[in-house]
């Protein structure tokens, strides 16, 4: 293979891939900031409005340090559940207190199947 062509493809390839993805970085960052700031604009409260109720505490504790997780739950499962929780809830406001298997009358896949089959046909 011609050395000129080889070097051309090598350089052109790296440069083009970086340029296009760099452009995507700026564009995604740009529209992401705009949309995020619009959608998360703090709403002004009127004096006579009643403040919204605080969300009820479930298994998530606001202030306590996480306790030891239940024995027998694999580390990967804990990692996946923790990642999912922190993705949905802001880490600043919640901390996972414990993770333990729940009692299931029906297997999860069975439940998913029932929900899928009983959902109204669109």
């Amino acid at each position, binding site marked *: 293979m011609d050395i000129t062509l080889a070097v051309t493809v090598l350089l*052109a390839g790296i440069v083009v*891939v970086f340029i296009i993805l760099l452009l995507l970085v700026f*564009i995604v960052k740009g529209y992401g900031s705009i949309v995020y700031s619009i959608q998360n604009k703090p709403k002004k409260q009127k004096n006579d409005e009643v403040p919204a109720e605080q969300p009820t505490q479930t298994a998530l504790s606001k202030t306590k340090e996480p306790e030891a997780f239940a024995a027998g739950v694999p580390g990967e499962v804990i990692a996946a559940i923790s990642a999912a929780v922190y993705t949905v809830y802001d880490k600043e406001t919640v901390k996972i207190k414990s993770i333990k298997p729940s009692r299931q009358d029906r297997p999860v896949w069975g439940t998913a199947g029932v929900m899928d089959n009983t959902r109204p046909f669109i």
Partner: protein
Amino acid sequence: MEILMGLWESLIGLFKSSGLMSLDWRNYIMIGIAIVLFYLAIKREFEPLLLLPIAFGMLLVNLYPDIMASPMTEYIPVTEYSGGDPSKYATVVINGISNYAVPTNGGVFYYLYQGVKLGIFPPLIFLGVGAMTDFGPLIANPKSFLLGAAAQLGIFLTFFAAGFMGFTAEESGAISIIGGADGPTAIYVATKLAPHLLGPIAVAAYSYMALVPIIQPPIMRGLTTKKEREVVMEQLRPVSKLEKVMFPVIVTILVSLFLPDAAPLVGMLMLGNLLKESGVTERLAKTAQNELMNIVTIMLGVTVGATATGEVFLAPQTLFIIALGLAAFAVGTMGGVLFGKLMYKATGGKVNPLIGAAGVSAVPMAARVAHKEGLRANPTNFLLMHAMGPNVAGVIGSAVAAGVLISILG
């Protein structure tokens, strides 16, 4: 006695037309290789969804080569013709003898293979991939795009090396795309640039994708320090539905405008994602990621495997392809990790370099490997969602790289 003679001649005729008389030693070796691939796919679960159909296609074509035969015209002398009404056939004179030009159909895989040859199946697989992919982590941290770009370094350096090993430019391009760690992309590029190498490239690509948990960790540990691997990254911000809906449209417009050759792959990937994220086409998204993808996977796999005949596969160049594929994977991982280290330095230690290895677009295996290595260094570190950003960026990056190769070499 005549009946016995007729029976004997029939049996002799059947035996002479059987594969036992028409196959050569290369076919039998390929049958053995197909069985090994069955073992890898079924017992060791190496990318079974594609490797098993590929292996079966390989088995079938080496047992019955005509399964991939293209349609042809058979010239039968008029005096020897014993079929139906010959009036529908053209008459051709060859060496003074009149012949009927009788068209024969191709093998079943020949027709199914048109989906690969015409570049239809890989974009359809990407449609399903897009419908299964969540680009949220990437949108939340767009810098991950750069890690996805850096991991494509393996493709272009391998292209350079392949040229010096005696491959043509088109063959080098098709082989180097293995480094993108993306099966449909590898098949798409190989079909466009070097269709005669499709069999070994596809087998190499899917085998290495399954070996990501073995290939990547030593490279990741070798290129990073313990302190770097322990970095805990900042929680990703939540991503709204509007952002997720805008993303596929913007990516399609930008990539297709700048690199039209990447439009089939990137466009279908983003269409699938938009079907999922819009929320108003749930049935289409479900079909794309389930029934459609499964049907296309079967047809793609079995016909790609059917290109792996003995003449193509049992050649010295196959060993080179396997070696170059491994090099492409390794260099891609190195590129991603090294760029991750650069980002670690540039951000004052906020980016864990391990997530750079996930820029190799074997989704979600590479992200999982990065997460596991992070856990080894720091048992409380959850890198999975951070690694998913570069992982899905790598899918876009490898499609863009494919577009570049096709644009320059096609």
